[in-house]
């Protein structure tokens, strides 16, 4: 499978900053993967995301080295107009990315900007609402929505532009646990239905480990760790980079050390319990 995202030797320094926000960063993401980006605040995650969707260098200038390619084209050499159709960006606060007075018009915002003809726009907006199951909110105003609903509306606005790559910046930080796990389920479903690639910045690893193909851990603007969730979380270094390992994984790690359970795959609570039962009998 071809790579939808290829980052090579990326480095970036903001104009007034003494040190680089990103340095020597390499990453290749095959189409259809869900990649989790983790690391402490200030490690350069936000900068990296902005370099992927083109806000860097098109909106923020600075010292830029290396290259970012999305679907084969260089981000630096494409226009924001083209990038907006290739990379969808769901920002942390959904409130600040809903512009219009009604849900359906907001979902259409990007398509209106691109000059998409009305019949096609109608179809794409309806499809985005169907995917996120928000059809009944079509005529609501933004202030009449809950946080979870706002998140879905914002995501629908992103998906209506039919990007192949979607960036989610801490999508669950403002959601309650139930809505957060629903959102993660939604991401897994969209990947399956549309084949969309997701890059997700997230602290709640417990929610994402089951659906993620890969975890990339950043530290001081560099890539510190990369691997499957099992590789990263069972490794020795994850904790030292401030990655919070889910408690069930920590338990599995401890039990595996004593040879009570296998350590190949990440297990859910139920799987771990079954495995322990089996080991005893």
């Amino acid at each position: 499978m071809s790579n939808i995202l290829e980052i090579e030797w990326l480095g970036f320094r903001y104009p007034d900053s003494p040190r680089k926000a990103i340095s020597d960063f390499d990453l290749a993401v095959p189409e259809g993967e869900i990649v989790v980006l983790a690391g402490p605040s200030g490690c350069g995650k936000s900068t990296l995301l902005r370099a992927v969707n083109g806000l860097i260098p098109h909106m923020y200038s600075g010292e830029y080295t290396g290259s970012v390619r999305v679907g084969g084209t260089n981000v630096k050499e494409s226009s924001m107009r083209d990038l907006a159709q290739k990379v969808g960006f769901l920002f942390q606060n959904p409130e600040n990315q809903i512009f219009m007075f009604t849900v359906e018009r907001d979902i259409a915002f990007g398509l209106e900007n691109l000059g998409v003809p009305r019949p096609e726009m109608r179809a794409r907006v309806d499809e985005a609402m169907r995917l996120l199951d928000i059809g009944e909110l079509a005529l609501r105003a933004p202030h009449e929505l809950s946080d979870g609903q706002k998140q879905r509306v914002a995501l629908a606005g992103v998906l209506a532009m039919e990007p192949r790559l979607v960036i989610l910046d801490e999508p669950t930080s403002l959601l309650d646990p139930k809505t957060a796990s629903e959102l993660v389920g939604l991401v897994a479903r969209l990947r399956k239905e549309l084949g969309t690639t997701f890059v997700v910045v997230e602290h709640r690893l417990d929610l994402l480990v089951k659906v993620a193909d890969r975890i990339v851990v950043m530290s001081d603007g560099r890539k510190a760790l990369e691997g499957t969730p099992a590789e990263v979380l069972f490794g020795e270094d994850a904790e030292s980079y401030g990655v919070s390992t889910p408690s069930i994984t920590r338990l599995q790690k401890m039990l595996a050390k004593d040879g009570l359970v296998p350590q190949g795959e990440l297990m859910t609570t139920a799987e771990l319990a079954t495995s322990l039962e089996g080991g005893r009998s």
Partner: protein
Amino acid sequence: MMWLSSGFIFRRGTSAYHRLDPRVKLLVSVLMFVTTLLVRTLYELAAVLLFMIALSAFATVLRRVARTMAFTALFSAFIFALNFVFTRNIETSLLYAARFVAIVVSTSLFFITTSPDELEQVMKTFRLPRDVIFAFVTAVRFIPVMFLDTIQIMDAQKSRGLELEKGNLLRRVRNMIPILIPLVVNSVVRSGELAEAMESRAYGAVPRPTSLVEYRTSLADKAVATAAVVAFALVAYSFYFVIPAQIL
């Protein structure tokens, strides 16, 4: 504050008047506005006001229009007093005072029954630049958000010991500073995030963006617009050529 401003804030309605094309509603309001400027006697003005009240009742917003009128009463009392001091003429003073109420009602009737979405449509009809329209749209869109922000900041500062209701006027105004500064900072941060989100969704990609919603002028719209213009012409004509002011 919310009570006072409610006379100008749109709430969704289902009356036949709400459903009219926003441009027709604007036309009706402008014509009523001009009529109030044309009237010369209290009787004529009373007739115009009566018509506006009937129209409000038809649009099922009579209660809110009444609230607007109660709100303007204070100002119009002031206008009456000022005019009376200078002209010593009760009738003229009353006319000016009542005219003010009528002007406010004609405008508020438009804003009460027109959604921000429709306002945007009206602005598009006048071919205002896209950036101006968008600035207006976001400004209105974020009114409820900023309102909630303000309440949160006030609560936060109160819990840290800020006493908003204490002291003389100057002190109270100074007390607002710890509210205003975070509010402004919040808004600046927010506008940065908005700009990023706009860029990411191709704002300004093509010179002529398309629109999801199409507004069509229906037969009813055309009928109401024609009736409004004809009625206005008749009223204006009768004021100046048929019924001399002295008779009324």
